[in-house]
């Protein structure tokens, strides 16, 4: 089982001496990201309440930070970094493509139904 682990993260900018060290390093990174999310979630700074492409800036930040976390969990905890690129693509691209499709459906149909509620003749508020 002489597996060679890839020990560098951040595009090779941060190198670890052993796999165990890398694990702790990634834990620290994930903890910092979670802490940022929680602090932003509690205080909700007014600066970030503005809208950007149809969503609050704050929500964009949350989603981007979540994707960053997901990346490190998959790449380092699930050892995706050490798998062949074919396996990596098979898993990640399939999921990504179908999730994009789901997001499209959600925005398209959710927006339509909301507009019916708002502008249609249906009375919903009594």
């Amino acid at each position, binding site marked *: 089982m002489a597996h060679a682990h890839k020990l560098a993260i951040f595009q090779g900018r941060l190198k670890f001496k052993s796999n165990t060290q890398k694990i702790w390093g990634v834990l620290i990174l994930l903890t910092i990201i979670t802490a940022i*999310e929680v602090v932003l*979630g*509690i205080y909700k700074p007014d600066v970030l309440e503005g809208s950007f492409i149809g969503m609050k800036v704050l*929500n964009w930040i949350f989603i981007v930070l979540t994707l960053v976390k997901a990346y490190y969990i998959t790449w380092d905890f699930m050892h995706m970094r050490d798998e*062949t690129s074919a396996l990596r693509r098979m*898993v990640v691209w399939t999921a990504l493509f179908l999730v994009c499709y789901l997001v499209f459906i959600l925005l398209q149909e*959710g927006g339509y*139904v909301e507009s019916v509620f708002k502008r249609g003749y249906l009375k*919903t508020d*009594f």
Partner: protein
Amino acid sequence: MDSTVVNTGAEGQTWDGGNDPLKSSYGKMMMWFFIVSDALTFSGFLAAYGFSRYKFSGSWPIADEVFTHVPFFHGNYPMIYVAFMTFILIMSSVTMVLAVDAGHHMNKTKVTWYMFLTIIGGMIFVGSQAWEWKTFIKGDYGAVQTQGGNLLQFGQYVTKDGEQTFKRVSVHDFAIVGNSERVQQQSNDGVWFLSEGTIPSLSMDEVINGIKANENILVRTEILDENGAKTILSRDESLKQLQANGRTVVEGANLHVNEYGSPLFADFFFFITGFHGFHVFSGVVINIIIFFNVILGTYERRGNYEMVEKVGLYWHFVDLVWVFVFTFFYLV
């Protein structure tokens, strides 16, 4: 039988990737494929949640106001407990990946200990989730549901440090308890096939009398104003709304009613966190099985700890899903 084709004449001819292009064992690959399909199930749930939320974007409950409790502490601590749960799950992911690493070095003692810690982490998480469910189901302030299924919540303005804020008031604190007009109908009261669920502990009249007696209690509706805060009605409006449209008192949340806002919020909460909690639970069970196999030396004899790696993949996946649930349920 000469004409039966028994081989294709293509033996030994593989394409560029050779016989194992992914350089991964069968078991690990299948675990990955399972994870992809399970990830899509969860994406489907979260997309459905997003869809419903979009649909009711003008009146969706604010998660910060719903999940404010921490065990053993009284007071208002939004997000803190969920953040703790997230941290526990990430931590147990770390011990899991350390177990996998120790397995690569064939270090049985370390694998045993790290697996043990992982199981403990998983149990703490499932326990926390059970507690969170209990708190959510029990509810805290109570509300009144209108004929149309909307919610009226109660509160009053309080001035603290020169700043006026709207503070929620529990229905139990102001309702004037008289003789309840109804008792719960059970199947032995009348016809055997007619019975009903638990009825609210307060009647509408008791709440309305309470509001009339307490001059400063106001009704807060579900509708979000342009600042994203819930609309608070004037005193006259409050009474009018309550008397004209109030139908029943709602305490806590279940699949039919929800004192925090849209019943769909509770439905999705139970369904998504429940499905995730079930994954964590089954993960703990599988971890325990693997843990005993490690102790018994099964993998030592087999010569590799790949089984730990496979269950590890599943465990990390559960953590991964929680990261998304945390974002979309509690933060966004």
